[in-house]
């Protein structure tokens, strides 16, 4: 017997591919790529039931009321002006003009000098403006969502433009401190009133 000549038989690994194929197919089927996206919103603090609160007084020129009725029509009332019916697609530009008040118009929100973090320093901003969103209870969620999307979009666009003006790149590329400063420059002031029901409910 020549001991050195004995050969260890190799493990047959040809079925390994099949096994891993089966597992691969299993995971392929069960997987759902993480594509969870959404509109991030911050709700106001809960109302304090013990204290009777008067609603805060807001000067007319500082308020933009967006009203969605039960048919999904959008009406915008700004300051002393009469309400106008607008399309959802027009809402963004309208809100942007209102928030920014670039020409310092008398009928748009008043500007105050506010101390902001660097690099802005003291700036004149419309810190008292309020966008009030009122929705009827019978409106479809989709319409409410589209309206909110446009309003938040107005803030996002203004912030992005400001970032490009000051830093030379978009809001998303800014670091955290810069984003914080920009967010204080254009502070999100969307208030959602309790929806009222005007018409008969289904």
């Amino acid at each position: 017997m020549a001991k050195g000549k004995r050969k260890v038989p190799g493990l047959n690994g040809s079925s390994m591919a099949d096994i891993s194929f089966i597992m691969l197919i299993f995971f392929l089927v069960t997987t759902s790529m993480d594509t969870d996206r959404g509109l991030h919103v911050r709700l106001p603090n809960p109302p304090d039931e013990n204290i009777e609160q008067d609603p805060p007084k807001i000067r007319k020129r500082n308020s933009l009321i967006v009203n969605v009725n039960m048919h999904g029509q959008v009406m915008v009332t700004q300051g002393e002006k009469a309400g106008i019916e607008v399309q959802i697609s027009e809402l963004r530009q309208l809100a942007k003009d209102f928030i920014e008040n670039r020409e310092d118009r008398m009928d748009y929100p008043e500007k105050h000098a506010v101390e902001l973090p660097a690099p802005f320093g003291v700036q004149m901003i419309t810190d008292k403006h309020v966008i009030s969103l009122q929705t009827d209870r019978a409106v479809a969620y989709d319409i409410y969502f589209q309206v909110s999307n446009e309003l938040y979009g107005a803030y996002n666009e203004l912030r992005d433009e400001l970032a490009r003006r000051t830093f030379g790149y978009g809001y998303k590329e800014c670091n955290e401190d810069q984003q914080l400063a920009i967010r204080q420059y254009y502070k999100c002031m969307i208030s959602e009133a309790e929806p009222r029901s005007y018409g008969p409910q289904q």
Partner: protein
Amino acid sequence: MPELNTSSLPDLIFSILFFFMIVTSMREVELKVEFKTPAGTELEKLERKSLVSNIYIGKPTREFRAKLGTQSRIQLNDKFADVSHIREYIQDERASLAERDKPFMKVSIKGDKDTQMGIITDVKMELRKAWALSIVYSAAQR
């Protein structure tokens, strides 16, 4: 003709397998409502899924329709729920988070497009009362 050497095939398949194992996330609840989320443009990604609690709002699926009708319903975890259950649900969800994660808790509202705002508003009011103020309207990118 020389045969093709397939000995590296398992390795190849294994690496694809691992990729899918990592990205996969099993659906944790069985959906009892149907919903089609609205489409928007100002969306952000949900970063840490473990911090997110879901509230599903939509029409009951076909098997429940005979019993519950086609009006929109709320689903929390595995069962249908009422608006009044939300506060309890949020408290449970918050208790299951680590102490340092609690301030970053988010609630994702997965609502059907055609749901009436009434339900959504009631849910939002309950969320406010439960101090779950950071919410996300789940939506598809337009």
